[in-house]
């Protein structure tokens, strides 16, 4: 019987396998940032250990950095200490770091692909659950905790039990105004936030093949929101074209060898997945979440659901709690919900294509007087690219704010936060209680819906303008 793509990549990286034990897996790339690494470096020092492969490790500052006045010292002393600690650790252990102000600084999952160090067939880890993003290249990429960060720093390996595999088949073609964000929100709503637990997802089908690399990254990014540690897409010409010419892409004979290998990276026709889920792209519409977990989503044309209609007691209880937190009443049309803030950015939707698509809706228009639009590019290079295309002017002329790169309001660690009771339409990945600021309320949307919502002041798609 054939193998799935995930099984092939796994097998290629097994350093040692013993029956009854986890496989010891080699890690090709370790991305680190300021928040989940300091305790790991402390652990190395305590045990007098070194970083085994500084040449397979790269650090950037993203979670905890300001997006304003980045040329000045970080104002929050606790944040500053954490960022300074990362800089010191990288200096002590000889690691590459892209600090605030560096042209290659940005959200770790935006930086890897743009440097070309994210390539097909690799194993990639980071102390961040959205590491699944890199799966868009046909890499096995997943988030790890700080103990595992220390393990990878010390040994460049991880002991892991191989997850099962699940195919997410998306056939058909997306209607205008429907994006990869809507695909993944629909997938999560279908299988639930625990549906992918214990699985590696593989996104397949004609609708996936038709997506750009950046749109694929949006999908793989949110695999974790369906409970799956990793999600991937088989590499194809779209992938190869994207990698080619990037700073760390192979060249010459290495490129030919790499390409030959990458072309072998797909699921065999006779391979069997442990589970399969099917979605019809033709039927998808712009999606929005109404609750406090990413599985609580519906097409924008729907109304807020009635908890009483949920068959399952857990779902009913979760919906009741969510509506209370979100201050929403059953039956309210989603399109009538007023928002205060629009956040455009994050490792989910902070890339140049995301900014272009939002700008295409906002160009020459003004946002509603009641809203604030925060645009935070995913990396310093995305910011520069956007400025070279005049996108910054589009956002500023529309009445938005144009910021420097970082995770920003996606997780509200830096000063970019919602105030208690404020409601956001956000292109990020999590609508958890208080995620974007204590007491803040989040509706997850695509960049197109974010832009249309900014103009109307209520949840809207471009078709509603």
């Amino acid at each position, binding site marked *: 019987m054939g193998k799935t793509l995930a099984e092939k990549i796994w097998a290629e990286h097994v350093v040692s396998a013993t029956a009854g034990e986890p496989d010891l897996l080699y890690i090709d790339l370790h991305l680190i940032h300021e*928040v*989940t690494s300091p305790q790991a470096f402390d652990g190395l020092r305590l045990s007098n250990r070194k970083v085994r492969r500084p040449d397979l490790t790269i650090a950037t500052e993203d979670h905890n950095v300001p997006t304003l006045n980045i040329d000045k010292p970080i104002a929050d002393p606790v944040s500053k200490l954490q960022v300074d600690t990362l800089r010191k650790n990288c200096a002590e252990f000889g690691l590459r770091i892209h600090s605030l102000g560096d042209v290659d600084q940005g959200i770790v999952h935006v930086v890897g692909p743009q440097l070309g160090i994210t390539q097909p067939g*690799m194993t990639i880890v980071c102390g961040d659950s959205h590491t699944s993003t890199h799966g868009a290249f046909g890499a096995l990429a997943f988030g790890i*905790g700080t103990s595992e960060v220390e*393990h990878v720093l*010390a040994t460049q390996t991880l002991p892991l039990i191989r997850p099962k595999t699940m195919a997410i088949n998306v056939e058909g073609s997306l209607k205008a105004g429907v994006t990869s964000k809507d695909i993944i929100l629909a997938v999560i709503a279908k299988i639930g936030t625990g549906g992918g*637990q214990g699985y590696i997802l593989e996104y397949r089908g004609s609708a996936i093949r038709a997506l750009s690399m950046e749109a694929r990254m949006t999908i793989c990014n949110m695999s*974790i929101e369906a409970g799956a540690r990793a999600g991937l897409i088989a590499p194809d010409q779209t992938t190869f074209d994207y990698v080619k010419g990037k700073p*760390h892409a192979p060249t010459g004979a290495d490129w030919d*060898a790499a390409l030959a290998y990458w072309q072998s990276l797909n699921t065999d026709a006779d391979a069997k997945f442990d589970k399969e889920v099917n979605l019809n792209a033709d039927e998808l519409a712009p999606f929005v979440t109404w609750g406090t977990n990413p599985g609580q989503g519906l097409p924008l044309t729907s109304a807020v659901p009635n908890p009483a209609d949920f068959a399952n007691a857990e779902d009913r209880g979760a919906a009741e709690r969510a509506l209370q937190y979100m201050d929403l009443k059953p039956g309210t049309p989603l399109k009538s919900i007023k928002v205060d803030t629009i956040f455009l950015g994050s490792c989910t939707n902070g890339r140049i294509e995301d900014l272009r698509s939002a700008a295409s809706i906002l160009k020459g228009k003004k946002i509603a007087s009641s809203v604030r639009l925060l645009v935070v590019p995913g990396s310093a290079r995305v910011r520069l690219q956007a400025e070279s295309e005049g996108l910054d002017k589009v956002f500023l002329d529309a009445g938005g704010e144009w910021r420097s790169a970082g995770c920003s309001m996606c997780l509200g660690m830096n000063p970019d936060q919602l105030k208690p009771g404020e409601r956001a339409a956000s292109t990020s990945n999590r609508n958890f209680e208080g995620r974007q600021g204590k007491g803040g309320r989040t509706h997850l949307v695509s960049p197109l819906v974010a832009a249309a919502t900014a103009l109307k002041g209520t949840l809207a798609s471009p078709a509603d303008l």
Partner: protein
Amino acid sequence: MEKFLTHTGSGLPLRRSNVDTDQIIPAVYLKRITKSGFEDGLFAAWRNDPNFELNQPQYKQASILIAGPDFGTGSSREHAVWALQNYGFKVVLSTRFADIFRGNSQKMGLLTVILPQEEIESLWQVVEEKPDTQITVDLQSKSVSYQGKSLPFTIDDYTRWRLMEGLDDIGLTFTKIDAVAKFEEKRATFKPKTLPIR
């Protein structure tokens, strides 16, 4: 890591599903660079509600958290495990755990035990009626017992052995470090390196 053989203590009922790690420890607490002192941030937002279980005096001694399904979803922050441990929890019982949270717990010696939802329901009722009910979670016999009742649970043998011995994964991997070096010799040359900077 401390050895985990058996633990007896009282339970705290958390009748909520999808308890994500942002609820367990909000992001503002993640700016710290230590592994200790996170107990003040545990369920910080929910603790503003005086009725929240953690604020109720009858559960002050609880060391076993009895949670709804899909506990620990979301962010990979190991700080969630540290916060639970710093507060005094030794065990979490749930029907389903998020993969990364469960992995982090197993690295730190916080035992996560999967039980069927009807057993979680029974435990909730028992603990709500009689908060000082003693619950024993025994890794040797792989069972949760209380009030003369014993519930078996499953855990893979390797993880169980590691937890019972209190073994550090990194130390175990160093026993195989020659195999790592051999693997590195045959890695393809086209694989990217972060250094030198290009």
